[in-house]
């Protein structure tokens, strides 16, 4: 039976991230969550598995902390989960992530489709799907808005800047889906309870034969701050203030 893989990332919940006075980020108190768009990817994989008569497998590459994501991922419908448990995930770039995920896909065998979210909700780098395709040498379709299957072919509609494009590809393939793919329903009680009983395969870093050394390193991570000019026109009559304001806006090139 063919397998459809849903790749997801366990990220820090951005609502819990604090910005320190020096613009650095404090994520020590942030809870984890499945990256928002990856929830759509999981649902898309579950639906695709249904359409293909296969089973959906949730796959993640993360630090030991990501282990807590498995129940959540499985409650969303996949029949099983695979977890690449590696401290190196904390420093991984797009290339390392893709190599790790692709290695796991090879281990799982008989995979007909890999579904990723278009981008992660922390970095939104949009690297994972294309790079997995490159490693596996499978066709890649990004920005997927909807998908259907015709025998061993996949027909995807892509949302591009100013048009929709329909493409057809043989399976196996890798797709990156947009959140508009589906509504990613909140799991029900029974789904949550059954999640704990589903099988989980854990790969350790060494099991995959992948070089985890990243080619890129993060040298700084800082909050984006808008420097405002904070000019207040408080002197004089209203008409004068308006004149001053419009003059200032013209000077700035806003008007």
């Amino acid at each position, binding site marked *: 039976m063919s397998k459809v893989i849903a790749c997801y990332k366990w990220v820090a919940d951005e609502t819990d991230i604090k910005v320190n006075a020096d613009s650095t980020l404090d994520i020590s108190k942030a*809870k984890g969550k499945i990256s928002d768009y990856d929830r759509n990817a999981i649902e898309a994989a579950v639906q695709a598995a249904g359409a293909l008569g296969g089973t959906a497998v949730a796959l993640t590459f993360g630090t030991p902390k990501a282990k807590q994501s498995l129940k959540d991922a499985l409650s969303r419908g996949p029949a099983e989960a695979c977890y690449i448990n590696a401290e190196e995930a904390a420093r991984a770039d797009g290339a390392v992530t893709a190599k790790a995920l692709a290695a796991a896909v090879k281990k799982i065998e008989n995979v007909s489709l890999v579904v990723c979210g278009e981008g992660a909700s922390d970095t939104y780098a949009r690297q994972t799907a294309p790079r997995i395709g490159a490693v596996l040498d499978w066709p890649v379709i990004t920005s997927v808005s909807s998908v259907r299957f015709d025998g061993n072919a996949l027909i995807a509609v892509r949302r591009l800047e100013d048009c929709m494009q329909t493409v057809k590809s043989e399976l196996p393939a890798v797709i990156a889906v947009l959140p508009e793919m589906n509504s990613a329903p*909140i*799991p*029900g*009680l*029974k789904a*949550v*309870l*059954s999640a*704990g009983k589903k099988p989980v395969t854990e790969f350790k870093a060494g099991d995959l034969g992948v070089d985890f050394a990243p080619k890129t390193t993060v040298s700084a991570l800082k909050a984006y701050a808008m420097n405002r000019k904070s000019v207040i026109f408080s002197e004089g009559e209203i008409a004068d203030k308006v004149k001053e304001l419009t003059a200032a806006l013209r000077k700035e090139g806003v008007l």
Partner: protein
Amino acid sequence: MGDENFDAIVIGAGPAGIACAYTLAKQGKTVLVIERGDSAGSKNVTGGRFYTYALEMVDRGLTAEAALERKVTHEQIMMLSGNRAISVDYYDPSFNRVGGTAQSFTILRAVFDPWFAGKAEEMGATVVCGIRVDDVIEKEGKIVGVIAGGDEMYANVVVAADGVNSFIAQKAGLIKDIESHAVAVGVKEIIELPAQTIEQRFNLKSEEGAARLILGCTEGIHGGGFLYTNKESISLGAVFMPEEVARHGRSLPEMFQEFKMHPAICPLLEGGKTVEYGGHLVAEEGYRGIPKKLYREGFLVCGEAAGFVVNLGYTIRGLDLAVLSGLAAAKAILEAASPAKVGPAYMQQLEAVKLLPIMRALDGFTDALDIPNLFGTYPKVAADLFQKLYAVDGSVPDHLRKQIWGVVKGNKLTLRQLFADGIRGMKAL
């Protein structure tokens, strides 16, 4: 036992529900806890002080592991009137002997509840968050399960620990919709400040904490304020009687903002950052607010859903009572020989763990705190008296008795009224 039939389903992962689940799971029972919030503790607006004896009754040594903030070493009462303030600070190291368990701690429920839920999970309970229980399932007059998130789930006993205004107890027909006089409406903010700043402002050593109740901050409305120092934040709140708020004409956030801006409160908060702002109801009637029946066959009500909260004016107790009730429910489920005997056993356990005796003993406070002058006039009288005592401007002061009488008259109080309120207070307590 199949997948969908548990020994117990507990609704709500607050202290009551978790104390029950923990105790049951520890004895090998299959327990499912269903929590509506995304995580345990995410739906509440408790001040937060926790009396540790209750946790020790659940399991000896639990307090040492618990996610707590500061041990309460400073018990404080504050009265505000206009821009004036009177503070009482009771410091008693015997409540917090070195090497022993401190009597009470301030807590943040968003931290404490997930910790406690995790302990129940370690014992083998299943805790599912983010799902609301919509209804109970009834068969032949018994409660046999719940409908939650579109699924039916069955259990020998359903324990409603879903907090004040319990929809589940309503669905089970044990209580009616809440009445406005039975509850107060509260506003609470958590304001972050560095630990050192908090320690300086409240005169605390590291790990020490203050718990403060405040009178005269509700514009004469029945109610009061509270302030708890956490490790790196202050929980500040105020509760008001909803009926009087409706007549008063000013919004809660407006009155709360004014309270925060009070010259005796504002400097405590200065430079802090609001990280949480919430509103909630709280049961206000103490013992007499407890529903007539707390059980049906296959169904128990625990915690604030059962009205287990007492406001004493100088402290508020709810979390410890919640834990006691959850423990009582679990003990009843464990010991009852047949399903029909669980309910009566629960009532016995509520006596045995001293929950009902405690609430009965404190019943009078509900009347004492019902004296209308307590919330505006008396704080003002007290402040006026202090003003007379402390004002020194070189003039010849009146005789003390005359000063007091002047203050009483100036506040349009009669001796008879003072006497009546005094008698009322004495009788109640």
